[in-house]
């Protein structure tokens, strides 16, 4: 039903196709790039220790980056990392945000006051610095990065949910539902949330892309995944020293940046397109 509507719009169809492509890559990662050590499939295999990247050859279709990490392998397994980070961070922060936002919005009064001031406190931290501090305290690792991001991502959802609940709960159909004898929590779950969830879903699907960018950014800064972990951000950070190539050929090492960069751009783009289309598809007023 929803899929059929997504397909009708060429732009959202493009987003969907790219997304399905990434899903397939993630699913078939072990076939596309068989891990050298099945125990640790996320560690990118190294083919030597020379720091100078080597251009694409049939065995390494995207070349090898600094430290001779295989770029193709990193991209393929990095897709799984991207999905995992994006879905986890957005899912968890969305859940926290929805719970906090609906309590604040529906009950109002003191609840609202207290919860929204907590939101303000969290919002007043500069995110990047706070994330760096958290990962410094907890130690390096993708899980810590995700934790840090959840800590500073849920407030947006809480605000969004609260705002739209404040508007929805004044609607007459909420009063009508109460007049039928429906319980409080059922009113929140069945009548208020479904009406206020669209902006959240749209925001969430778009955020999956931006979460991956932020995670990549943190990896780039060196507080993300451990060295050699299949993560797009880290792949770019490997290529950092080779951005400019050699004096004779400025694009000598293009493959170190272009492939991981392209992966990130396409991934974010796909989610944005799909998120945009969600808005039109999920609204029942647009149906029929």
């Amino acid at each position, binding site marked *: 039903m929803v899929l059929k509507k997504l397909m009708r719009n060429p732009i959202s169809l493009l987003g969907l196709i790219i997304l399905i492509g990434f899903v397939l890559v993630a699913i078939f990662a072990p076939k596309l790039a068989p891990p050298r050590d099945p125990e640790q499939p996320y560690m990118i295999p190294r083919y030597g220790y020379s720091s100078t990247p080597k251009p694409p050859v049939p065995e390494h279709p995207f070349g090898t980056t600094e430290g001779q990490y295989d770029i193709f392998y990193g991209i393929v397994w990095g897709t799984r990392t991207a999905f995992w980070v994006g879905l986890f961070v957005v899912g968890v922060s969305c859940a926290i945000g929805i719970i906090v936002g609906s309590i604040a919005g529906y009950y109002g009064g003191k609840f609202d006051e207290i919860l929204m001031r907590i939101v303000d406190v969290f919002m007043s931290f500069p995110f990047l610095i706070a994330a760096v501090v958290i990962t410094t305290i907890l130690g390096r690792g993708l899980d810590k990065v995700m934790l840090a991001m959840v800590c500073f991502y849920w407030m947006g959802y809480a605000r969004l949910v609260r705002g739209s609940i404040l508007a929805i709960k004044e609607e007459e159909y909420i009063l009508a539902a109460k*007049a*039928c*004898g429906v319980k409080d929590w059922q009113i929140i779950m069945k009548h208020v949330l*479904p009406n206020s969830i669209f902006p959240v879903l749209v925001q969430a699907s778009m955020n999956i892309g931006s979460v991956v960018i932020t995670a990549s950014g943190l990896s780039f800064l060196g507080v993300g995944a451990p060295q050699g972990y299949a993560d797009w951000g880290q792949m770019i950070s490997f290529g950092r020293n080779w951005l400019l190539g050699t004096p004779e050929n400025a694009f000598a090492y293009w493959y170190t940046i272009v492939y991981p960069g392209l992966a990130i751009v396409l991934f974010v783009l796909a989610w944005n397109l799909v998120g945009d289309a969600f808005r039109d598809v999920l609204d*029942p007023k647009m149906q029929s």
Partner: protein
Amino acid sequence: MTHVIQVDDLRTYIKTERGVVKAVDGVSFSVDEKEVLGVVGESGCGKSITALSIMQLLPDRFASIESGSINYIPRDGNASIDIARLNPKSREMRSIRGKEISMIFQEPMTSLNPVYTVGEQIIESLLLHEKMNKKEAMMRAVELLKHVGIPDPELRVREYPHQMSGGMRQRVMIAIALSCNPRFLIADEPTTALDVTIQAQILDLMKRLQQEHDMSIMMITHNMGVVGLMCDRVLVMYLGRVVEEAKVREIFKSPLHPYTLGLLNSIPKLNPKERKKDRLIPIAGNVPDPSEIVTGCRFAPRCPRAFDKCQEEPPLIEVETGHKVRCWLHE
């Protein structure tokens, strides 16, 4: 005649930034079995707040029942329940709402949830109160839609509210309100938002259903025409107080309170013999801000026949059996 609901000295106050507003200030009335009681008055007279008090659906942060009782007498002759004493969120109150007392709202355009089909919304209270399974409830929903005069109910039950017109939606609202065979129905201006031809259809429908289901109705309106068509008895409210109470025939034949007279005079008359002048006579002024404290008769500042004694508040005087008025003119 047995009562279905008996309200005694109900006081519902609203807290505002400018002080406490006595929205309902000592209102007493009762509704008999199978009776349609009209409640009329201009906007801001406390009609809707009275209705919401009976349903215990007042916005709890601003409004609350201060004193008085609302006794609901259940069908099977069980002891009466004082709704005013129940917690609005209690299970007991929830089992009364929708099952024993239902309510229809003014705006059919916004009273239905846009994300569910009308069928899903009708079965909600059936699943809640009648212990039906989903399939039975859906079949009952189709029956109900047919009952309220919606064509092709099997198809319509799967439609979303935005696919229906205002009149259709109000029919759906009535179907929802009737789904559990309530004993008492509160209709808060059910036809105000509809256009005139649809108004008549909806009123006919409500009258028919009231007789078929042996329901009592409290009909809130500011339209005297609706009162004449639907009601057995009328309660005229002004600024949180009952100013006149009478059988519907009495109200039209011999209205006693100057306010009732004013309401009747502001209806256009089609019959040229009845039409004394070409112009309608409106009631002077507006309903005053309810937060202002009025001493004496509340209608006195707008009353064409006010005199010295109106400085004092008149009691509700029973002029004839069943005809009460709060006015010194009829002492």
